[in-house]
């Protein structure tokens, strides 16, 4: 690999983007935009700090810390949870601003994009002028931005972190002094760990190792990291032109203007797309998403990953892109109507099998492995053989538990944090029955327990028959609590009451009774078990 053949790449990097996006300071006209970043703010995902503000870093908060650990260092830390939709939406104006300066923008993730530098630099009269133009363009919509230009994408990203223009041919020396932990950005902390224990502390030290030995010891992924460290290779492996017929088109009929619905509809097409490529022993490193709206507007964007894109990565990018276009500020929006067609075109592919997916997984190796295992279980038991539980809004416990097939998009129908008058206080039953199972709740005279019109139990419960094994004695009980539903409609109005009963073995149950008119025909069923 000859250094001189590497393309010059300019990278635009918005530091701490997850923090900037969720703290709502993307409007640079706010006088206190950069002041806000001096406050200690941290963004949390999966129990770990994924980004923090300058202010938080100043008091010792670091990425990868647990929430508790971070709060111990900084008690007034403002912790927010990550919102990728907001990150994508807020980054859209910056992408457009860059597109006004240069063409051929490739987005790596919200907060980081790259462009080929050679042509625009010649046009604008030098690389320093290009960097200044990019910075000025993005600065209109983003409070803080830095631009780096170097040979190859990896060196350019590192240059952007230092806001530097590295002259052509000197990317190797530039990278040589950086700490070995820089490779962490590929999610490969195990490799970095081993290298540290071997006494290698800088990228230069790693790059000085013989390439053959690195490949033998660390495999292909290690060899790739080794080439990166030496500033010798910007791409995982030799890039191939993708076969034309691998692009897929999703027709949306009728047109859709909701991000989650589009992402869900595209899921199977994306899986076909990835499967088609892998049938040809290829994986996708850069993808173009092209959407057509029902008014005939057409817009496209390229997305590049540092490794290869998995099906869920492509879905994420579809979501980010459409979020930005549909919900971005209206004056610059290129898509103003519902979307009728989505096309996914592979721009750059690499031979597959050269990448271990785990090294590039979105939320780490463990999550990617878990997802693969669940996909395997789904092939054994069917798509709905694996369920994802969630708490949603509702009055009775069965309503408040939602179980959807794993991987299916969750549409927020009923929000759990809204007030739901009439719901029972904590603790919630650990087992819910859906549908509720019919049971008998009997009084001392072996008749069903009846709750009167005024909401009082006429004769207290005495025995509980779950109809599975022999009836048990009721030791204590509480309620009844009325849960009148649809009382305004005389035809469907039923009087429902709930009671908690504890049997002689100390087991507690949540039971619901339906009362007919005048308290006749009382019927009881089991809704939950406090196991």
């Amino acid at each position, binding site marked *: 690999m000859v250094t001189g053949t590497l393309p010059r790449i300019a990278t635009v990097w918005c530091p701490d983007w997850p923090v900037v996006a969720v703290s709502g300071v993307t409007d640079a006209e706010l006088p206190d935009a950069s002041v806000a970043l001096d406050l200690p703010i941290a963004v949390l995902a999966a129990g770990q700090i994924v980004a923090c503000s300058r202010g938080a870093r100043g008091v010792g908060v670091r990425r990868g810390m647990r929430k508790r650990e971070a709060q111990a260092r900084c008690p007034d830390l403002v912790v927010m949870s990550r919102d990728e939709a907001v990150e994508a939406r807020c980054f859209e104006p910056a992408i457009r601003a860059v597109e006004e300066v240069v063409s051929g923008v490739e987005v790596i993730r919200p907060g980081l994009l790259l462009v080929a530098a050679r042509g625009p630099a010649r046009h604008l009269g030098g690389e320093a002028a290009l960097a200044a133009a990019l910075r000025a363009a993005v600065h209109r919509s983003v409070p803080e931005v830095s631009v780096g230009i170097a040979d190859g994408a990896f060196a350019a990203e590192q240059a952007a972190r230092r806001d530097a223009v590295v002259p052509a041919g000197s990317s190797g020396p530039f990278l040589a002094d950086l700490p070995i932990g820089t490779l962490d950005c590929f999610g490969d902390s195990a490799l970095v760990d081993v290298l540290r224990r071997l006494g290698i502390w800088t990228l230069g030290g790693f790059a000085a190792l013989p390439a053959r030995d690195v490949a033998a010891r660390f495999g292909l*992924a290690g060899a790739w990291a080794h080439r990166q460290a030496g500033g010798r290779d910007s791409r995982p492996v030799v890039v191939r032109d993708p076969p034309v017929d691998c692009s897929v088109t999703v027709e949306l009929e009728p047109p859709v203007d909701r991000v989650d619905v589009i992402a869900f509809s595209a899921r199977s097409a994306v899986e076909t797309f990835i499967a088609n490529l892998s049938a040809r022993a290829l994986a996708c490193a850069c993808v173009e998403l092209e959407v057509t709206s029902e008014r005939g507007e057409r817009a496209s964007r390229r997305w590049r990953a540092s490794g290869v894109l998995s099906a869920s990565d492509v879905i994420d990018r579809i979501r980010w892109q459409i979020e930005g276009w549909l919900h971005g500020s209206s004056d610059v929006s290129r898509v103003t109507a519902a979307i009728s067609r989505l096309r996914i075109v592979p721009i750059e592919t690499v031979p597959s099998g050269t990448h271990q997916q785990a090294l590039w997984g979105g939320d780490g190796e463990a999550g990617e492995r878990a997802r693969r295992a669940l996909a*395997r279980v789904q092939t054994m038991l069917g798509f709905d*053989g694996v*369920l994802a539980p969630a708490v949603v809004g509702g009055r009775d416990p069965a309503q408040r538990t939602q179980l959807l097939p794993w991987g299916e998009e969750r549409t927020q129908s009923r929000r759990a944090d809204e007030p739901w008058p009439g719901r029972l206080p904590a603790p919630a039953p*650990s087992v819910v*029955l859906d549908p509720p199972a019919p049971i008998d709740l009997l009084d001392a005279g072996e008749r069903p327990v009846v709750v009167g019109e005024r909401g009082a139990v006429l004769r207290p419960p005495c025995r509980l028959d779950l109809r599975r094994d022999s009836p048990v004695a009721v030791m204590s009980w509480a309620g009844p609590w009325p849960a009148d539903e649809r009382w305004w409609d005389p035809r469907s109005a039923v009087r429902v009451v709930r009671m908690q009963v504890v049997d002689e073995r100390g087991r507690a149950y949540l039971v619901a009774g339906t009362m007919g008119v005048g308290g006749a025909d009382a019927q009881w069923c089991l809704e939950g078990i406090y196991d």
Partner: protein
Amino acid sequence: MAARNPVREWPAAPIAAAALASRSPSLPVHPALHQLLPDGLRRGSTVSVTGSLSLLLALIADASAEGAWCVLVDLPNGSATRLGAEAARDFGIDLARLPVVPATRESWTNVVGALLDAFDIVAARAPARLADGELRRLGARARSRQSVLVPFLAGGRWPMADLRLTAQPGEWAGIGDGHGRLARRRMQVGVEGRGQAVRSREVTLWLPGEQGRVELDEPAASVVELSDVRRTG
């Protein structure tokens, strides 16, 4: 002799091996369970739970909150019953990392085996009839994959578990004869281990406690109990 040479062996799975070595040897549990499990949930071990689904949820809650991937297999049980997601969340479990496999039918062994390969904790209802060889094989798989297998025993059995947690019938507080409501439950939970390494002991827990989480009941009483154990054992 080539197989003995470490340089030759490394390229097989160097990064996975390094990742395994760098992981912590055990998963955290709630402080209220420290007397039962002083070291947390040791990776590669089998910890059976008997008597209460809440105990199982409390056991895996802190590991889940700290980022571990957990999965429930055949729990609670059968067709019409489901996990109460709210109770699981109140114990501190992160539902985003808690898939549920409700009914495995005949492929129980295959499903649990596949999940052990990838998950930190696999909690599964032990089926009524399963050969000792199968149980032993799954235990070995958990050990080699460094995951924790948590069989839930209700009708089933798991004689070779490393630790056995057993909940006695509980006693509900807050509910009377027609007044109050279920507030919290006091439960005796005992632990037994195989071999000499683990001393049997018993603690009293609120399961669930006031906020739906697990709490230790009166630390003073537990200390007395520990000294009892020491005197008799």
